[in-house]
């Protein structure tokens, strides 16, 4: 690994941890869901840097794509139930 990719890996890892903390401690649910999706997105870039594009694609498509939208879907449902 070159110095540049090591530096990029470290930056991504720190950003991932930051997003994870935001997802746990954030007060607003939509922001927590987005932060959880961001963790997956950073993870998929990290997988790509570690030379495993297959895993990166799965993580990007399922982890940060479908799961995030699924959470929003359910959030909308739960809120509708609370109000109605």
């Amino acid at each position, binding site marked *: 690994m070159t110095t540049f990719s090591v530096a990029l890996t470290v930056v991504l890892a720190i950003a991932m941890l930051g997003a994870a903390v935001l997802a746990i401690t954030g007060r607003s649910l939509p922001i927590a869901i987005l932060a959880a999706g961001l963790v997956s997105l950073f993870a998929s870039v990290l997988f790509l840097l570690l030379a495993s*594009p*297959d895993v*990166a*694609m*799965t993580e990007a*498509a*399922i982890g940060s*794509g*479908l799961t995030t*939208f*699924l959470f929003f*879907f*359910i959030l909308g*449902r739960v809120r*509708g*139930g609370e109000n*109605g």
Partner: protein
Amino acid sequence: MVRRFAALLLILALGAVFLPLFLAYHPDTSLNPTALYYAERTAQDLGAANIVTAIVVTYRGLDTLGEVTVLFLSAAIVGLVLARDRLTPRPHTRVPAGELLTTGSRLLAPLIMLLGVYIFSNGHLTPGGGFQGGAVIASGVLLLLLADPERRFGHRIIGFIESLSGVAYVLIGLAGLYYAGGFLDNRILPTGQVGQLFSAGAIPLIYSLIGLKVGSEFSSILADLSETEEL
């Protein structure tokens, strides 16, 4: 206070479990014997350019069949749990999607689905395959559902595609038992030249079936969720 202390203790214990693993980690300078076998033999034995796909579909094909079965079971359970709410339809009072989303989805949804088909039909050549392609197709379906929450997908068609690809997947596996080396052996078809679209024997066929199966399972979960009345 006690709960926080317990949680902290749990985290420390977990750290203590993982610490030896972390300290004992030394990156390998060469491939281990199993990886070396896959790296050297995949191209000449199976004709697949993407080693990961060869492992997922052929060397460890039975595991993949199990994974697809687990996914099928979860989709079936979601359908079963949500089916009761569908029996009593109530009038919808949902806010329609914005103009931007509606117009954008018309342009993007076919392209997203095409990308999904491309990913799983080229699984033996480029990174990605059935699971990734299926998830991409399902996100195309999700976009359509977001743009028009009233849209209804034919459950009969989704179920038909899902079961047809599942049965065909098992049948191809059984054909491998008779015509080649074993269950899910890809050499029932000629392996061809490495790097060509029609190569690697039955791998493109199997991965396309997996892609269709995964895509229809995810789509049916999303459609079930969308069609359920608000609880």
